[in-house]
């Protein structure tokens, strides 16, 4: 806190040694090597913490007074600008702040609201005026990806592609995220395949880890993640499934059918289109013995694999 006030109070850069002399909590004997190293570690920790809170630390050297680099906080960058919301805007912000389920995004919006409240804007009091009607989809991977994009760091995660049998480790320089048709996507440069790729967040099966240094890459101009997402989905030509459905059973499969028949004693043949083999297979498996997949072979194989997992699941 004193560090913030000290850096804020002067337009000049304050060197680390001057800060150590003046700011309470940093006092030490600079000739004592261990004490000085401890100070440096503490100072680095505090700087990182301030940046996380949003305090813009500038570093530079004051050409007239110092030789070692110093730090300052420019008031115009530090302070929340004057901001006023109409009732409708405040209601929208309050509703938006309640949207997230995922802890990091939730705490991000909560911290933002606290800063607004400190500036005298209480959006929560308008919350009732705005019907909360939207909740986004699965977003666990969204927060680390946004963080990686902001700091230009690479990420690593396990990904189960629609044609993959098991999840594969992928390394990506993410460029941007987008929501399309109720699903979140991330696009970027796939470091293992050395190509541009788009990933669906629901198919990320592991935690997203940030790897490597900051500013490791630049994001190309005019990246259109939405175009990537729609393209990635369009690339998969739909497959035709032919399944045998027991009489008067599996209405969910019948509903989706574009062709029913011929009808046989053991059931009705039903055909429909699909794009995602694992998802379709586990859905068909959920009907148990009421549905037998006839075609194509990879869907049969995947459905049987699901059923075997279910039948033999160990304790």
């Amino acid at each position, binding site marked *: 806190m004193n560090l913030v*006030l000290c850096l804020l109070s002067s337009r000049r850069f304050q060197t680390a040694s001057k800060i150590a002399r003046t700011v309470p909590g940093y006092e030490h004997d600079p000739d004592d090597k261990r004490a000085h190293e401890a100070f440096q570690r503490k100072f680095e920790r505090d700087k990182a913490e301030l940046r996380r809170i949003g305090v813009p630390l500038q570093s530079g050297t004051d050409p007239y007074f110092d030789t070692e680099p110093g730090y300052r906080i420019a008031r115009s960058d530090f302070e929340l600008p004057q901001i006023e919301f109409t009732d409708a805007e405040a209601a929208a912000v309050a509703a938006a702040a309640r949207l997230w389920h995922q802890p990091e995004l939730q705490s991000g919006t909560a911290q933002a609201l606290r800063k607004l409240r400190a500036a005298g804007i209480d959006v929560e009091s308008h919350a009732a005026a705005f019907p909360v009607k*939207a909740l986004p989809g699965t977003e666990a991977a969204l927060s680390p990806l946004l963080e990686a994009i902001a700091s230009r760091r690479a990420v690593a995660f396990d990904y189960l592609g629609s044609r993959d049998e098991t999840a594969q480790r992928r390394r990506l320089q993410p460029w941007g995220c987008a929501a399309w048709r109720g699903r979140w996507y991330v696009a970027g440069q796939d470091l293992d395949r050395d190509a541009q790729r788009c990933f669906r967040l629901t198919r990320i099966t592991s935690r997203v880890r940030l790897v490597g240094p900051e500013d490791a890459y630049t994001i190309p101009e005019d990246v259109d993640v939405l175009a990537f997402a729609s393209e990635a989905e369009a690339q998969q030509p739909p497959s035709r499934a032919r399944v045998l459905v027991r009489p008067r059973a599996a209405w969910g499969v019948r509903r989706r059918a574009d062709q029913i028949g011929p009808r046989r004693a053991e059931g009705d043949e039903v055909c429909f289109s699909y794009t995602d083999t694992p998802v379709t297979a586990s859905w068909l498996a*959920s009907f148990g013995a009421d549905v037998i997949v006839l075609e194509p072979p990879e869907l049969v194989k995947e459905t049987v694999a699901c059923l075997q997992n279910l039948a033999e699941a160990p304790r």
Partner: protein
Amino acid sequence: MSVRLARLLNLVPYLVARPEGVPIRELADDFGVSIAQVRADLTLLWMCGLPGYGPGDLIDIAFDADTVRVNFAAGMDRPVRLAGHEALALSVALRVLADTPGVGDRAAIASALDKLAAAAGVEAAEVPVRDTVVESDVERYAALVESGNAARITYYSASRDTTSERVIDPIEVVAADGHAYLRAWCRTANEVRQFRLDRIDACAPIDEPARPPAVAGSAGRSLTGAAEPAPTAFLERELPLIELRLSPVGQAITDSHPCEEIIGEADGYRRVKMRARDLEWARRFVLSLGGEAQVIAPAELRESVRSAARAALDRYGEAAGADGR
């Protein structure tokens, strides 16, 4: 530590913005901490100030009776700008709202987005949002809600695998997890239900006003931002409790299904306890997870999942045997 520093940085400008003073109880409530914590924070702030740290340099906060006001803020008049991740979390949520059909005042959302962008210290990344729900006929159901009429619908229930006709009193359209739902009083079930729009096979308004009985418990949520449960949630104490062991892939269900207990295991698996509507629903649910979930309890459910899967495998076996002949 960082939480406390963030709070201290907010406390001073909060008091500056309220020169008339704030009761300490209100201060504690607004910052979501105890009164004792607020007192500790204020005491710490007393010892902070400008270099020199003489009496005129330190932050001066006065208590009178139980009201807190600031006399000297040592230059801390405004809160810190929104950090990149804070502005982003809010602005992406606003974009989701703006894109969701039937969600109110779009112009207000757009201008709030502009103002937030100006309040953020760094340029926030663009996170485009388009079509937050799969269903394309949201406006039609929003219009139905607007019309105030009851309706007769044909609805496919995935959990029962049946289609049924029912008369409903529409309440509102809700978007969640990529789908739009019509929230309505179901006269057949005698309770509020969420109907996923893409499972409504037919819908015709009837010439009768919608009269959903007043439903308790939908208002009054806390300031912590705890969101309403997704419409996929149905949590009732008397429902059967099931215990599953979920693979890393299967864990996605914990986002859309409320769990009473989630325990992480060393190998990335998780044990969860959740309420099921009934064991028939639970059987379909576990089967649909394709082996990514193992049933731990009850044993009855474990057996019914296994025998359903075995019965299906037997049929595949028969088919293969028939081909071989």
